[in-house]
């Protein structure tokens, strides 16, 4: 903070920049604009109007219920409605309910989540093509955890 630790600055633009930096850091309060001119050299800085809180924590989100289907960008996430264990097939040796590239329809079972020995079929709430499978067979999932990403089929977005 003390002046004597500041490095020496030379040259008109570098000097101007260094002076601008020091000045901005020395001033209290939220700055909006700083302009420094010396001869025909000018530096202008403007800050955004509403800075984010400095701690970087996101504002808490108060969601009202568990979305089973969450659109993200152009992909639709199928999320787990409960804590449990995911099974991608109806039996250890059976084929997976769905795989990448499959087209799913509304109401179609995409995985099973087991909780307290109950097997709960998780069904798609929109139609689409499986773009990514985000869980492995036997994996634990939390409430709200994404299971599959679907890409909208033509017209599914309408």
């Amino acid at each position, binding site marked *: 903070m003390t002046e004597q630790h500041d490095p020496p600055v030379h040259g008109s633009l570098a000097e101007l920049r260094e002076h601008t930096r020091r000045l901005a850091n020395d001033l209290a309060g939220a700055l909006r604009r700083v302009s420094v001119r010396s001869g025909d050299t000018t530096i202008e800085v403007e800050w955004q109007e509403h800075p984010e809180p400095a701690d970087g924590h996101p504002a808490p989100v*108060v969601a*009202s*219920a*568990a979305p089973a289907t969450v659109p993200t960008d152009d992909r639709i996430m199928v999320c787990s409605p*409960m*804590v449990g264990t995911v099974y991608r097939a109806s039996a250890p040796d059976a084929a997976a309910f769905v795989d990448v590239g499959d087209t799913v329809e509304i109401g179609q079972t995409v995985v099973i989540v087991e909780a307290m020995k109950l097997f709960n079929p998780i069904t798609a709430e929109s139609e689409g093509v499986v773009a990514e499978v985000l869980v492995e067979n036997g994996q*634990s999932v939390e*409430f709200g955890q994404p299971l599959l990403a679907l890409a909208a089929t033509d017209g599914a977005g309408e």
Partner: protein
Amino acid sequence: MTVFRKVLIANRGEIAVRIARTCRELGVRSVGVYSTADRDPRVQRHFDEAVHIGPPASLRSYQNIPAVIEAALLTGADAIHPGYGFLSEDPDFAEICADNGLTFIGPKPRQIAVLGDKSSARRLMRDAGLPLLPGSVEPIANTAAATTTAAAVGYPVIIKAVAGGGGKGMAVVRTPDELIPAYTRARDTARSVFGDDRVYLERYLDRARHVEVQVLCDGHGNGIHLGTRDCSVQRRHQKLIEEGPAPALSTTTIDTMSDAAVRAALAVGYTGVGTFEFLVDEDENHYFMEINTRIQVEHPVTEAITDVDLVREQLFVAAGHTLGLTQQDIQPRGVAIECRVNGEDPDRDFVPTAGTLDRFDPPGGPFTRVDTHAFTGYALGPHYDSLLAKVIVWAPDREQALNRMHRALAEFDVAGLGVATTIPFLQRVLADPEFRKAAHCTALVPRMQATKEAGG
């Protein structure tokens, strides 16, 4: 002395943080659970891991047995601490924990069931030698029985739901002509609220103190008490201020109640921490009311006067250890007071408020403890009870403790758009002459509110 490897805390707010603290001090890993409403990572920082178990509605998250059990199993927890409220007094939950190989940190399911039922609890405790208020031990079967019993015990009487709690389903009857309508209404209410229309009837005390005895029993037949607490400062059966030891009672009364509570707990094979609630009248007659089979909100009062970490003791006893404390080790010193700082507006009949806390600077300094999950930037939401922080102070005597609490609340800075707290009301109670001389009873807060409304 090993306890558990990993404990899941099936709760939220200050009590979840409280339990996580003792876990960390014991080297026990903690698993927090949270609903979507509580997903701020700053709340989760007290836990070693945390599982998102459901949406804000507590029935689908904190009271959702499958979600809690699955979270425990998936994280490899070996025990579940239920805190208070939510699943803490649910015998089915305790049973399901056992079925899944998880230790429920609390009494056995059977004890929770029989002691949670007020009718069976009263019968058991009467048989164990605790004095009951004059009234019916068994449910009142019909209007004729109601009339006979009320006449025998003398008016005023109070009708209570066997399955009741928190003041719901209670009715005070002052004259015989009010009895039958009140009885009928009480059964109707009990049926709709608790799904159980059994009610009982007992003498109603107009000027009574709420005094409770903290007990602690292991699974090997050893039990002690940890002194008394007075919780007479209540608003609609919600405690606002608690203190220990109960003031203005003779040593004889305190000792009699405390010893009787331990004897009764041991007689029914109770394990863990438990609270025996009594009503005490102006002549220091005391009457057993009910047992709380869990850690209480106000447990820090007892910790401050006895030097005992009650959550630590809970964990040890639940892990099967023999009590390390004897009755001789418990020598309560001084006076401790707890104030509950709720996010409620005392000027608008204690309506819960919500908003983000732009400032949250809790008190500190000598002999001052704060238990809270809040912090500057915390979003107080509308989903759960509005307890924001508990402030606990200790001092060598009651007057110093009251002055210390006044100081602590005065420096407690909570501010946020739309947020009000009970601090101003608590300060009014602390300044009340009747409260200061410990001459108050459960009628204190209603009297103060009436005074205020009358323009006082």
